[in-house]
């Protein structure tokens, strides 16, 4: 099994005695309600314009044969995370028991190397102003709800998911729900060729959503308007 082939000492998938948390996203069950995105925003006071989790969609096919394909996204808490090895000051690190990839906000210098290293756009720079939190101008990302999981709760997005599309658990435990889903279903991870060993497994993900769009460089005009409007009002 490929997951038992560990090439780096940092990897903990399949290591006896260690937890390795993972998420399974069953896209067949996702209805695109974005409740996960909202729950995450509420949990972390994530500012306007940036997201720890987001649910993009693509409309695939031509009327009347069409389908909206959702692909909930978040940090993959990679087993071999390039963001961690690229941080010059160890401000981003991997928790050995559990596999969470976390931030030391007080240490981050804001060089954005980790952002450049992440193949999944999972990281973002916190803007200068936030409503409730004083942590600003450092890089942030999904924490797999470390504070909840270590209190025996599931992440906020998993708890709120109405379709029960998101499932969370210890993939090193053969009896966990995530182990069962990954073993019994055809799954895929995003951009496996990057060697990051992502720990978010997708069931039924559509290639239109997981690949680079062939027309990616023809950005829709409406997006450019949004992007420039956003940048005007988003001071970092």
């Amino acid at each position, binding site marked *: 099994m490929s997951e038992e082939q560990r090439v780096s000492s940092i990897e903990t998938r399949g290591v006896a005695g260690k937890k390795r948390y993972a998420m399974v996203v069953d896209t067949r069950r996702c209805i695109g309600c974005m409740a996960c995105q909202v729950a995450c925003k509420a949990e972390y006071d994530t500012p306007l314009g940036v997201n720890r989790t987001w649910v993009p*969609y*693509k409309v695939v096919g031509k009327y009347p044969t069409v389908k909206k394909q959702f692909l909930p996204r978040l940090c993959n808490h990679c087993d071999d995370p*390039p963001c961690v090895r690229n941080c010059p000051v160890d401000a981003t690190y991997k928790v050995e028991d559990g596999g969470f990839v976390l931030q030391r906000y007080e240490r981050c210098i804001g060089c954005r190397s980790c952002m450049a290293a992440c193949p999944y756009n999972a990281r973002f720079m916190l803007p200068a102003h936030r409503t409730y939190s004083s942590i600003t101008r*450092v890089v942030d990302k999904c924490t797999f709800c470390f504070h909840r999981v270590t209190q025996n709760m599931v992440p906020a997005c998993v708890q709120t998911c109405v379709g029960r599309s998101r499932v969370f658990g210890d993939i090193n435990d053969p009896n966990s729900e995530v182990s069962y889903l990954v073993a019994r279903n055809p799954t895929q991870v995003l951009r496996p060729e990057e060697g990051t060993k992502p720990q978010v497994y997708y069931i039924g993900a559509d290639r239109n959503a997981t690949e*680079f769009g062939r027309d990616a*460089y023809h950005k829709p005009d409406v997006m450019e308007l949004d992007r420039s409007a956003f940048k005007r009002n988003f001071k970092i």
Partner: protein
Amino acid sequence: MGDYVWFHDVSWHASYAIYFFVIGICSGLAFLSYGSWITPALRPLREKAAYLSFALLAVGGVLLIADLSQPMRFLNVLNPAYLNFTSPLAWGSLNIVAFGIASVLYLMALKKGDETPRTKLIATVTALLALGLPVYTGYDLTVHQSRPIWNTPVMPVLFVALAIASGSAVGSLVAGGNEAARKVLHQYLLWSTAAVGVILVSILGTTNYGGAASELTFVILTTGTMGLIFVGIGILAGTAAPVALLLAPVGHKQSGLMLSALLVLVGSAALRYALLMGPQQLQTLY
């Protein structure tokens, strides 16, 4: 349409390209100052190049720190308890500091008028540390395995060639009417710019024949505004044109050399910008 594509920002902005440009010239000038110990024709440039290189190091340092979102924490990169040696940036910061110290020692020796083997040794160490600057900046891009163009082993080599080219270009402007220095600088500028061209062709070739992400990055870099900057200004006006000019008889004259130097400077700035920004575009839409 109707797709909802969340957009992401690029990680490194244009200010980082300005840093690349400044630090490239800084290291190129350090090579020239060191070169004057081996090639007597460059002797008149020794002090000028060393001082200019040091001034640019200061400018580069300020740019680098200002680019951080937490500039006051820049000393964290020198804290041995924090340093992470798998990051090229950690090596880079040590390299910059070591180069700064070596440059100060070198300038002090030059000020004393020492032409001793000891000063030559300091010049050698300074030049070696100067070599580390483009190597680490290139390597800083190379390590990002998911980014086409960046993730090529020749990136540090390209940055070294760019540093020599832009350093020699500034040297050519500074050398003015000095015939002997001009002859040497002509050779430096010609060969380093030609090397930049050869490396770019090989990078573009492998990118165009690469996978989906590579092909799309190739398209981004060769069309539209980015195409104008990369191909138009960087490759044609800033690499091919100066090489042609330097090969022609006019390139051996002062005016020809100066014009080539200006073209190389503009071109190398455009190349650094496009090489930094272009490969980041595609992923903002992933």
